[in-house]
């Protein structure tokens, strides 16, 4: 593709890469302050209990101990509606009971052993369906159904759609609890200077979450709270939730010294926020020609003990069912349910990959039943550029939701067809694919595919400042956190593009509430779109000022900027370079931008089609991923290398989730049995298949330089693509993730495909 840009579309090296490779990049748990103390957390050994007595006197008097906090010592203000700073009721094994700050970590750990707690044991419930029963133990006083009602969203009239359908297909699919496994565990450091608080922490949302929560819960004015994230070692949507920052700030206040608390790996699995398990029942009614007439997805999500972002996770389960296929009638119903499992939270893709698993496997079953190639089925019935049929509901002048339901609204761009065709071509679909279950022998190979639709588009409110300095440096200030996805680099490329300066002239200042304008949460795959738009506009504003300055310096009325040179419009004089004009500035010249979110004309979504070749060992149930092709429409790609890494990393992450990652709960004790890298089986380096990434679609008309979302979309189709490939190879459908040898063997037995 012809690239009309000098910085956008280039494979710029990730900014800060050398520091990371050399081990010089400083993460929260590397930070020290004078007089630093170390915190440790006492965790509940019971899944559900009320603390009837707690004695910390021995711990407080232990050598090196400076502060101990229990539920009796903390502010009344809650962190979330269902999450107190510390609670006399513990709701899962691993729930926080008390915290200690001491001179060194072993002293803190020793002090934990001296805390005497008496518990009144309460009945516990771990299964979401059981938790909804009338006689189930209540995890929270308000009941186990979060918000007291199910979420229902719909388009058209599904009952009528099913009544008119020629055939109806159904399936029930479930997905597991697992940990997000960022390589860096959670950590926070708090330091008070009088009544001013500075907190360094692992975070994806300094301005909108951490700073607000700290100020509100601690009763400190917002302007006296500063939050900083120096580097993130893996975000995956998961590090703003929980009690950690507030507890560390309270410990530091009580001890009168700075305190840092780092989660261990087991704590990260227990006290972090995990992926919730779901059970998803899907129904699709089709017309004689195979066209979907009604789609209904019902999900029950096990949120664990605290809901945090669980509502959004549930809502997102429905996205594919509601919008991926052209269908007049669609309905989603989601129950979010408290149980005494460790708390769930947000994680890459929210519920979308879980709902897409159900949808995309059932669509393959429909295609098989109709004896239609599943690629052809999707080419015929995927949602087109024009969006869904029906009447627009949102008033014309209002912003459209980015989780679309209604019909009658077009997409800004829709590359599903490009992705299907390019991905099929790359993997050799038409030459290689045979009908499901026609292979034989002990090792059977097959191809599968699945599509994905994901939000990210209409974005979030975003601000940016771009300063042009006489030193010849450009400073870009944005309040967001680069959680490792590379947004620092991409935003710098956008600024460099607008200003026509080399990328190495741009300094990025991010993730510090004292140095940046308010920034949005790094969530919903929106940084490039939202903050990218803000940086672009701020840079344009700065450039406009610089143009005026150039015109004055050149003594002309009007200048144009071409290839880094300001030229008189009539080209009558020699030009001045951008850097020459900047160096002539009397002081910094600042361009600012503040953008509202949204579009009132279009739904802005990203799309994908994934293709995978697998081998199934029929005698052991082992799956091997042989080849993976991920085709994505994320508009114009600002940095192809980072984008390819983003996609291949996402695919590898979700192949681990598809094949083996799961947190096991012991049903008798409520204990999580495998909170470790050994037994929570993330993919090892020798298990990684090659992942080929292609971006066959063109630029989006709305996004900055035509870019759309990319962070989460590549996780969405993975489960479905793998399950469909297994069905193609073995003739056996998988309904339960992860697809371990045990489950594959079980499916082979239950579905009667005999060993050769």
């Amino acid at each position: 593709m012809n690239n009309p840009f000098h910085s956008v579309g280039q494979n710029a090296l990730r900014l800060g890469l050398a520091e990371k490779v050399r081990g010089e990049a400083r993460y929260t748990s590397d930070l020290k302050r004078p007089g630093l103390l170390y915190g440790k957390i006492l965790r509940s050994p019971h899944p559900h209990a009320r603390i009837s007595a707690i004695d910390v006197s021995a711990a407080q008097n232990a050598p090196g101990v400076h502060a101990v906090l229990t539920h009796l010592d903390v502010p009344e203000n809650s962190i979330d509606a269902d999450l107190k700073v510390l609670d006399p009721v513990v709701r899962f094994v691993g729930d926080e009971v008390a915290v200690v700050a001491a001179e060194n970590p072993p002293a803190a750990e020793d002090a934990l052993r001296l805390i005497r707690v008496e518990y009144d044991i309460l009945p516990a419930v771990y299964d979401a369906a059981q938790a909804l029963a009338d006689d189930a133990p209540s995890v929270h006083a308000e009941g186990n159904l979060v918000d007291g009602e199910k979420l229902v969203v719909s388009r058209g009239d599904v009952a009528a759609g099913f009544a008119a359908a020629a055939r109806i297909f159904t399936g029930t699919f479930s997905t597991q609890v697992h940990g997000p496994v960022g390589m860096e565990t959670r950590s926070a450091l708090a330091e008070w200077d009088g009544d001013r608080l500075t907190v360094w922490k692992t975070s994806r949302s300094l301005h909108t979450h951490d700073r607000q929560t700290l100020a509100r819960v601690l009763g400190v004015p917002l302007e006296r709270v500063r939050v900083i994230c120096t580097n993130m070692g893996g975000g995956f949507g998961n590090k703003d939730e929980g009690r950690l920052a507030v507890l560390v700030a309270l410990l530091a206040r009580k001890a009168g010294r700075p305190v840092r608390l780092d989660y261990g790996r087991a704590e990260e699995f227990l006290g972090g926020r995990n992926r919730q398990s779901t059970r998803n029942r899907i129904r699709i009614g089709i017309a004689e020609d195979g066209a979907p007439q009604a789609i209904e997805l019902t999900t029950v999500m096990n949120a664990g003990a605290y809901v945090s972002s669980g509502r959004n996770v549930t809502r997102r389960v429905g996205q594919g069912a509601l919008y991926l296929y052209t269908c007049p009638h669609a309905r989603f119903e989601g129950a979010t349910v408290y149980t005494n499992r460790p708390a769930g939270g947000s994680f890459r893709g929210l519920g979308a990959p879980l709902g897409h698993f159900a949808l995309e496997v059932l669509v393959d079953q429909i295609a098989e039943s109709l004896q239609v190639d599943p690629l052809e089925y999707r080419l015929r019935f995927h949602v087109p550029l024009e969006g869904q049929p029906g009447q627009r509901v949102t008033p014309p002048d209002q912003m459209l939701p980015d989780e679309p339901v209604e019909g009658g609204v077009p997409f800004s761009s829709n590359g599903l067809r490009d992705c299907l065709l390019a991905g099929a071509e790359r993997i050799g679909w038409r030459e290689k694919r045979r009908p499901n279950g026609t292979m034989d022998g002990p090792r059977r190979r097959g191809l599968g595919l699945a599509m994905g639709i994901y939000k990210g588009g209409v974005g979030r409110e975003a601000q940016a400042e771009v300063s042009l300095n006489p030193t010849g440096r450009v400073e870009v200030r944005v309040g967001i956190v680069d959680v490792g996805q590379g947004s620092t680099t991409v935003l710098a490329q956008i600024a460099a593009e607008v200003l026509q300066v080399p990328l190495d002239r741009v300094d990025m200042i991010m993730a510090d509430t004292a140095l940046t304008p308010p920034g949005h949460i790094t969530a919903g795959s929106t940084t490039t779109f939202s903050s990218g738009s803000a940086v672009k506009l701020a840079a344009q504003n700065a450039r406009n000022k610089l143009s005026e300055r150039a015109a004055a310096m050149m003594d002309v009325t009007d200048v144009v900027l071409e290839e880094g040179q300001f030229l008189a419009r009539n080209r009558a004089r020699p030009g001045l370079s951008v850097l020459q004009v900047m160096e002539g500035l009397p002081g910094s010249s600042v361009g600012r931008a503040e953008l509202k979110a949204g579009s009132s004309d279009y739904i802005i979504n990203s799309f994908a089609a994934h293709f995978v070749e697998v081998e199934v060992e029929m005698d052991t149930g082992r799956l091997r991923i042989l080849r993976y092709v991920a085709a994505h429409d994320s508009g114009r790609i600002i940095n192809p290398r980072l984008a390819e890494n983003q996609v291949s990393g996402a695919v590898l992450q979700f192949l681990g989730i598809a094949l083996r990652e799961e947190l096991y709960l012991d049903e008798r004790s409520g204990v999580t049995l495998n909170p470790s890298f050994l037994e929570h089986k993330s993919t090892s380096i020798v298990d990684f298949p090659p992942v080929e990434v292609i971006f066959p679609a063109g630029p989006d008309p709305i996004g900055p330089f035509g870019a759309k979302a990319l962070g989460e979309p590549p996780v969405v189709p993975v489960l479905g693509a793998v399950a469909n490939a297994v069905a193609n190879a073995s003739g056996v459908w998988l309904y339960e993730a992860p697809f371990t040898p045990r489950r594959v063997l079980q499916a082979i037995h239950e579905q009667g495909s005999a060993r050769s």
Partner: protein
Amino acid sequence: MKPFAFHEPQSVAGAIEALEAGRENARLIAGGSDLLGQLKDDLVHYERLVSLGAIEGMREFHGDQSGLRIGAGATLARLEHDPLLTGPYSILAEAARGIATPEIRNQGTVGGNLCQRPRCLHYRSSWISCLKKGGADCPAVESSHQQYLSVFGGAGCFSVHASDLAPPLLALHASAVVAAKGGERTIPLSEFFAGPEQDVRRENTLSRNEVLTAVVVPAAPEGWRGAYLKFRERNAGDFPLVSVAFGCSLVEGKMQNVRMVLGAVSPVPRPCPEAEAVLEGQRPDPEFLEAAANAAFAPATPLPHNGFKVEIGRALVLRAMSQVLELDDH
């Protein structure tokens, strides 16, 4: 982890002395890759750790016509790479190569691998009481997460021995050299391991003040070849769900000196004399191989949620036999 004293004696005699002086609360440490994890997870506590790391003799590594003598302190990485381990002994290198990760193989030792504690998920959780930790019963028998438990019974405790070196060493008819205060004794490795019916809190017959100093492998029968196959959920950094060591020699087209040992399916590594008997003296025809695989697992009594290990185990045994006998992939 609670504090402990660390002793580093220069000799085996010094180690035995230090163990004795530590009474009930002393424990040997070699590479530490298992023990330190247990200490950090608060599964066990010892007042005194007696390191074997400074005892040069523990790292001996000899081989000649009479066989091999491998010090208990030899690292797994040494086994993986040492040129002595060819021919019939390559099965040991193969097994070592599949253990954990390169970092752990650099640190972990032969003795530590044989003396490792079970990987039972319930045993490994400090929040759960179990027989092995002095508790009243086994919580794992009623759990639905039984993939790392025995399919051959368990006398109350159903944890398995997960050593990857034990099956091939047993197949090679290795012995353990055990040092005690009075001197040294050599016992067949099969008598080194002991299941819960003897003492549920231990997995071997070492007494408190004894040190496993070496394993001795006799000369292998002429033409004997073996294979070690390990089935696991991921191909690095993982313990076996099932493993098998198989070997034999082919004399005039007939199998002799047939050895088969299963790993990770029983409280101690499990030799399969019935399966060996099916094959001994026979030609490697598919019917015998099938019969041997069936014989190996015929006594299996899986728990409610680990029957799949029997099926995988049979397939693995067939593969191991095919590999050694150079038959087409079964």
